[in-house]
Protein backbone atom coordinates (compact mmCIF):
# COMPACT_ATOMS: atom_id res chain seq x y z
CA UNK A 1 0.00 0.00 0.00
CA UNK A 2 1.77 3.13 -1.28
CA UNK A 3 0.73 5.89 1.12
CA UNK A 4 2.81 8.56 -0.63
CA UNK A 5 2.67 8.65 -4.41
CA UNK A 6 4.66 10.51 -7.00
CA UNK A 7 3.00 9.59 -10.26
CA UNK A 8 5.49 11.29 -12.56
CA UNK A 9 8.75 9.35 -12.67
CA UNK A 10 10.45 12.06 -14.68
CA UNK A 11 10.15 15.72 -15.62
CA UNK A 12 12.14 17.82 -18.04
CA UNK A 13 12.15 21.64 -18.02
CA UNK A 14 14.21 24.38 -19.55
CA UNK A 15 16.60 26.46 -17.50
CA UNK A 16 14.88 29.54 -16.10
CA UNK A 17 11.39 28.07 -16.31
CA UNK A 18 9.26 26.75 -13.45
CA UNK A 19 9.50 23.14 -12.32
CA UNK A 20 6.43 21.69 -10.63
CA UNK A 21 6.73 18.35 -8.89
CA UNK A 22 3.60 16.70 -7.54
CA UNK A 23 2.88 14.34 -4.68
CA UNK A 24 -0.32 12.68 -3.45
CA UNK A 25 -0.92 10.91 -0.16
CA UNK A 26 -3.63 8.65 1.18
CA UNK A 27 -3.04 8.69 4.95
CA UNK A 28 -5.08 11.52 6.47
CA UNK A 29 -3.03 11.22 9.67
CA UNK A 30 0.06 12.68 8.02
CA UNK A 31 0.76 16.07 9.59
CA UNK A 32 4.19 17.00 8.27
CA UNK A 33 5.54 16.86 4.75
CA UNK A 34 9.07 17.18 3.44
CA UNK A 35 10.87 17.28 0.13
CA UNK A 36 14.30 15.73 -0.28
CA UNK A 37 16.67 16.00 -3.23
CA UNK A 38 19.00 13.16 -4.18
CA UNK A 39 21.98 13.15 -6.49
CA UNK A 40 23.38 9.83 -7.79
CA UNK A 41 25.57 7.95 -5.31
CA UNK A 42 24.64 10.36 -2.51
CA UNK A 43 22.12 10.28 0.28
CA UNK A 44 18.95 12.40 0.16
CA UNK A 45 19.34 15.98 1.37
CA UNK A 46 16.55 17.96 2.97
CA UNK A 47 15.07 20.72 0.84
CA UNK A 48 11.92 22.16 2.35
CA UNK A 49 9.03 21.13 4.61
CA UNK A 50 5.49 22.13 5.49
CA UNK A 51 3.23 21.49 8.44
CA UNK A 52 -0.36 20.46 7.85
CA UNK A 53 -1.55 23.65 9.54
CA UNK A 54 -0.14 25.67 6.64
CA UNK A 55 -0.88 25.69 2.95
CA UNK A 56 2.32 27.28 1.69
CA UNK A 57 5.95 27.50 2.67
CA UNK A 58 8.60 29.36 0.72
CA UNK A 59 12.40 29.25 0.86
CA UNK A 60 14.20 31.15 -1.85
CA UNK A 61 13.51 29.53 -5.20
CA UNK A 62 11.55 26.69 -3.59
CA UNK A 63 7.90 26.81 -2.58
CA UNK A 64 5.79 23.94 -1.31
CA UNK A 65 2.00 24.06 -1.52
CA UNK A 66 -0.30 21.79 0.49
CA UNK A 67 -3.93 21.06 -0.36
CA UNK A 68 -5.21 18.95 2.53
CA UNK A 69 -8.67 18.43 1.13
CA UNK A 70 -7.18 16.93 -2.02
CA UNK A 71 -4.35 15.21 -0.11
CA UNK A 72 -1.96 16.77 -2.56
CA UNK A 73 1.24 18.76 -2.32
CA UNK A 74 3.52 20.25 -4.90
CA UNK A 75 7.02 21.66 -5.04
CA UNK A 76 7.66 24.68 -7.24
CA UNK A 77 11.18 25.63 -8.28
CA UNK A 78 11.53 29.06 -9.87
CA UNK A 79 13.70 29.69 -11.76
CA UNK A 80 14.98 26.20 -12.48
CA UNK A 81 18.74 25.78 -12.77
CA UNK A 82 20.85 22.94 -14.22
CA UNK A 83 22.11 22.14 -10.71
CA UNK A 84 18.55 21.32 -9.72
CA UNK A 85 18.70 18.18 -11.86
CA UNK A 86 18.24 15.36 -9.37
CA UNK A 87 15.66 12.93 -8.01
CA UNK A 88 13.11 14.61 -5.74
CA UNK A 89 11.38 12.60 -3.03
CA UNK A 90 8.23 13.61 -1.24
CA UNK A 91 8.00 12.31 2.35
CA UNK A 92 5.46 12.48 5.15
CA UNK A 93 5.23 11.74 8.85
CA UNK A 94 2.32 11.17 11.23
CA UNK A 95 1.88 11.87 14.97
CA UNK A 96 2.96 8.95 17.08
CA UNK A 97 5.09 7.66 14.26
CA UNK A 98 8.29 8.60 16.01
CA UNK A 99 9.16 11.04 13.25
CA UNK A 100 9.37 8.10 10.83
CA UNK A 101 9.22 9.29 7.23
CA UNK A 102 7.24 7.53 4.51
CA UNK A 103 8.68 8.30 1.09
CA UNK A 104 7.25 8.45 -2.40
CA UNK A 105 8.98 6.77 -5.32
CA UNK A 106 10.65 9.95 -6.54
CA UNK A 107 10.60 12.17 -9.62
CA UNK A 108 13.71 12.59 -11.76
CA UNK A 109 14.00 16.27 -12.69
CA UNK A 110 16.18 17.26 -15.61
CA UNK A 111 16.81 20.95 -16.20
CA UNK A 112 18.06 21.55 -19.70
CA UNK A 113 20.10 24.47 -20.96
Amino acid at each position, binding site marked *: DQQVKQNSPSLSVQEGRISILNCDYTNSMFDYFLW*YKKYPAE*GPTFLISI*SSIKDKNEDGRFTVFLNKSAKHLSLHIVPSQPGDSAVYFCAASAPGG*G*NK*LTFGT*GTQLKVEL
Partner: protein
Amino acid sequence: EAEVAQSPRYKITEKSQAVAFWCDPISGHATLYWYRQILGQGPELLVQFQDESVVDDSQLPKDRFSAERLKGVDSTLKIQPAELGDSAMYLCASSLGLASGANVLTFGAGSRLTVL
Protein backbone atom coordinates in the same frame (compact mmCIF):
# COMPACT_ATOMS: atom_id res chain seq x y z
CA GLU B 1 28.82 20.99 8.66
CA ALA B 2 27.95 17.89 10.70
CA GLU B 3 27.48 14.72 8.69
CA VAL B 4 26.20 11.20 9.09
CA ALA B 5 29.10 8.86 8.34
CA GLN B 6 28.54 5.50 6.68
CA SER B 7 30.88 2.72 5.60
CA PRO B 8 31.59 1.02 3.36
CA ARG B 9 30.34 3.14 0.48
CA TYR B 10 30.27 0.12 -1.82
CA LYS B 11 30.09 -3.60 -1.09
CA ILE B 12 29.98 -6.49 -3.54
CA THR B 13 29.34 -9.91 -2.12
CA GLU B 14 28.14 -13.31 -3.17
CA LYS B 15 24.81 -14.63 -2.03
CA SER B 16 24.83 -16.53 1.26
CA GLN B 17 27.71 -14.40 2.56
CA ALA B 18 27.45 -12.07 5.54
CA VAL B 19 27.68 -8.29 5.16
CA ALA B 20 27.74 -5.46 7.66
CA PHE B 21 27.23 -1.73 7.40
CA TRP B 22 28.28 0.89 9.91
CA CYS B 23 26.78 4.28 10.68
CA ASP B 24 27.92 7.13 12.90
CA PRO B 25 25.14 9.71 13.33
CA ILE B 26 25.50 13.42 13.95
CA SER B 27 26.74 14.05 17.48
CA GLY B 28 23.85 14.53 19.88
CA HIS B 29 21.24 12.98 17.61
CA ALA B 30 19.29 10.51 19.73
CA THR B 31 17.28 8.96 16.92
CA LEU B 32 18.89 6.79 14.25
CA TYR B 33 17.22 5.20 11.23
CA TRP B 34 18.24 2.58 8.69
CA TYR B 35 16.46 2.83 5.35
CA ARG B 36 16.77 0.66 2.26
CA GLN B 37 16.36 2.10 -1.21
CA ILE B 38 15.90 -0.25 -4.14
CA LEU B 39 16.65 1.31 -7.52
CA GLY B 40 13.61 3.14 -8.85
CA GLN B 41 11.85 3.20 -5.50
CA GLY B 42 11.76 5.48 -2.49
CA PRO B 43 13.62 4.75 0.74
CA GLU B 44 11.83 2.32 3.06
CA LEU B 45 12.42 2.21 6.80
CA LEU B 46 14.05 -0.95 8.11
CA VAL B 47 14.68 -0.03 11.74
CA GLN B 48 14.54 3.01 14.03
CA PHE B 49 16.44 3.52 17.28
CA GLN B 50 15.90 5.97 20.08
CA ASP B 51 19.22 6.00 21.90
CA GLU B 52 20.06 2.29 22.21
CA SER B 53 16.46 1.04 22.07
CA VAL B 54 14.61 -0.17 19.00
CA VAL B 55 11.50 1.96 18.38
CA ASP B 56 10.33 0.32 15.16
CA ASP B 57 11.67 -2.76 13.38
CA SER B 58 8.39 -3.92 11.89
CA GLN B 59 9.80 -3.89 8.34
CA LEU B 60 13.12 -5.52 9.18
CA PRO B 61 13.40 -9.10 7.79
CA LYS B 62 14.48 -10.53 11.09
CA ASP B 63 15.36 -13.95 9.74
CA ARG B 64 18.40 -12.48 8.03
CA PHE B 65 18.77 -8.85 9.13
CA SER B 66 19.91 -7.56 12.50
CA ALA B 67 20.72 -4.10 13.79
CA GLU B 68 22.24 -2.81 16.96
CA ARG B 69 23.16 0.47 18.58
CA LEU B 70 24.81 -0.75 21.74
CA LYS B 71 25.96 2.52 23.31
CA GLY B 72 23.32 4.70 21.72
CA VAL B 73 25.78 6.30 19.35
CA ASP B 74 26.97 4.42 16.25
CA SER B 75 25.07 1.52 14.74
CA THR B 76 25.65 -1.62 12.71
CA LEU B 77 23.26 -3.28 10.27
CA LYS B 78 24.03 -6.89 9.39
CA ILE B 79 22.68 -9.22 6.73
CA GLN B 80 23.32 -12.95 6.98
CA PRO B 81 22.96 -14.64 4.60
CA ALA B 82 22.73 -12.11 1.80
CA GLU B 83 20.27 -12.81 -1.02
CA LEU B 84 20.12 -11.42 -4.56
CA GLY B 85 17.09 -9.31 -3.64
CA ASP B 86 19.10 -7.48 -0.98
CA SER B 87 20.96 -5.50 -3.63
CA ALA B 88 20.10 -1.90 -2.77
CA MET B 89 21.36 1.31 -1.22
CA TYR B 90 21.36 1.18 2.57
CA LEU B 91 20.87 4.64 4.03
CA CYS B 92 21.44 5.72 7.59
CA ALA B 93 19.82 8.87 8.94
CA SER B 94 19.67 10.64 12.27
CA SER B 95 17.55 13.27 13.96
CA LEU B 96 17.46 15.04 17.30
CA GLY B 97 14.39 13.29 18.68
CA LEU B 98 11.03 11.67 18.11
CA ALA B 99 8.69 14.66 18.02
CA SER B 100 6.72 14.37 14.79
CA GLY B 101 7.61 17.06 12.33
CA ALA B 102 9.94 18.78 14.74
CA ASN B 103 13.09 17.25 13.39
CA VAL B 104 14.44 16.82 9.91
CA LEU B 105 16.24 13.58 9.13
CA THR B 106 19.82 14.01 7.97
CA PHE B 107 20.99 11.18 5.74
CA GLY B 108 24.42 9.74 5.16
CA ALA B 109 25.82 9.07 1.69
CA GLY B 110 24.66 5.45 1.85
CA SER B 111 26.20 2.02 1.35
CA ARG B 112 25.58 0.47 -2.05
CA LEU B 113 25.25 -3.33 -1.81
CA THR B 114 25.48 -5.62 -4.82
CA VAL B 115 24.78 -9.31 -4.24
CA LEU B 116 26.02 -11.65 -7.00
